[in-house]
């Protein structure tokens, strides 16, 4: 009688032992399975890359970047929203970006719908309804422009229309050399001065 009891007891223990082994293996499997599932990013067919300003991981709201150029003159870049393109590099996609650079006594402003700000290289690229102005004297509009804070250059390769009080200008591009206080309207150009 005692031996029968011992036998049934050892059987239960054995079954329990195997069950625990299977259970532990199951837990281990599930653990790995779940880990992989955390890394999975569901693909969204509707999500399309618009341009180089997309795909980012961190978002900043209303950021303001302030720096100094070679001549220790300040520049400022601001936006309604900014997101880092990569974690390790300080390159930001911007929404409604604004750039501001001081040259001697003049302040130039540049704004657009979207932007890309490369902080280490100190340049700001703008796209969509780009407006360049000095607020008081002149302003001109284009679809794309780049502001190089290091070289103190503002460039545009697209059609430009500009205004300054009684004058208007049309051209196929522009380049602003802030050091020389010179604006070059590139390609076929037309300037009209009204009396």
């Amino acid at each position, binding site marked *: 009688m005692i031996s029968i009891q011992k036998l049934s007891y050892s059987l239960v223990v054995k079954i329990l032992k195997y069950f625990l082994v299977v259970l532990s293996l199951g837990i281990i499997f599930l653990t790995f399975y779940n880990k992989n599932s955390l890394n999975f990013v569901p693909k969204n067919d509707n999500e399309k890359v618009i341009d180089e300003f997309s795909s980012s991981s961190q978002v900043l709201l209303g950021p303001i970047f302030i720096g100094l150029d070679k001549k220790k003159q300040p520049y400022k870049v601001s936006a309604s929203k900014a997101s880092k393109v990569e974690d390790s590099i300080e390159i930001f996609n911007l929404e409604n970006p604004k750039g501001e650079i001081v040259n001697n006594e003049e302040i130039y402003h540049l704004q657009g719908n979207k932007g890309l700000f490369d902080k280490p290289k100190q340049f700001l690229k703008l796209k969509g309804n780009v407006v360049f102005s000095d607020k008081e004297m002149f302003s001109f509009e284009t679809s794309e422009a780049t502001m190089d804070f290091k070289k103190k250059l503002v460039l545009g390769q697209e059609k430009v229309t500009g205004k300054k009080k009684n004058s208007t200008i049309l051209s196929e591009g522009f380049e602003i050399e802030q050091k020389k*206080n010179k604006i070059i309207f*590139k390609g076929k150009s*037309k300037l009209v001065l009204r009396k």
Partner: protein
Amino acid sequence: MFNKFFFLVIFLLDFSILSSQEIISSSKEDEPIEIYADNGIEWHKNEKKYIAIGNAKVISGSLTLESRIIEAFYEENSNSEMDIKKVIAFKDVKISDEKIRITGGKTAEYNIKKDYFQIVGNKIILTSESNILNAKKKMEYWRSKNVAVATGDAVAIKKDEFEIKGEKLVWHLEKIGDETKVKKIMGFENVSIQTNNEVAFSDKALYNKKKEICKLFGNVRLQKGDSFLLGEYAEVDLKSGISKLMPAPKKSNFAEDRVKALINKEGVETNEGSN
């Protein structure tokens, strides 16, 4: 002496009228100025100028100035409005204003307030319908006053009528309806007038379109073939082809300025001894 004084008075009077007229504002001043370029327009803010590069063109009303490079200088008023004061064109200068064309200039400067051009070059040609004015140094053109001054071996030509040469020639144009005609020509230094049948030389000359008469002053020499007449004053009728050689008008020392003639084969009509 009187002749010189008389001519100087005419010359000074002419230019004093021009200068005074420059001050009077022209109706053309209100027209916008358009600047075109194929290879861009540079705006030099410090120098207050625009540089149009490549097939550059400035248009204001009926006036067109073309060149390879054009610089336009402006001034700013208190409202930061720009007002172009001066335009300078470099290389292959061409100017057209209604029926007037000026070509061959190396450089040209246009003073907008005075409405005045100064074109420099060694083969400048101004044409106004059938009239041509050439210069080898400089051409000045008072646009709104219709006056052109050619300097340096200047030649004024009217097809089938005459050719006037001189170191300096002053052209007065007038607009009658759609036509632009030469009203008056003044010649200075080594002047010569060639008509269909003779050549006249003098120090100075004055041609009047209305009377079709060209008056010659100082060291006058009328030449027809190998024959010539010498005197101090002459009148050449370009319409009839008759030339009158006379002593200087109201001259005190009559004998000294007596008319001299050398007649060969065909005679030349003279007024020797008459006043």
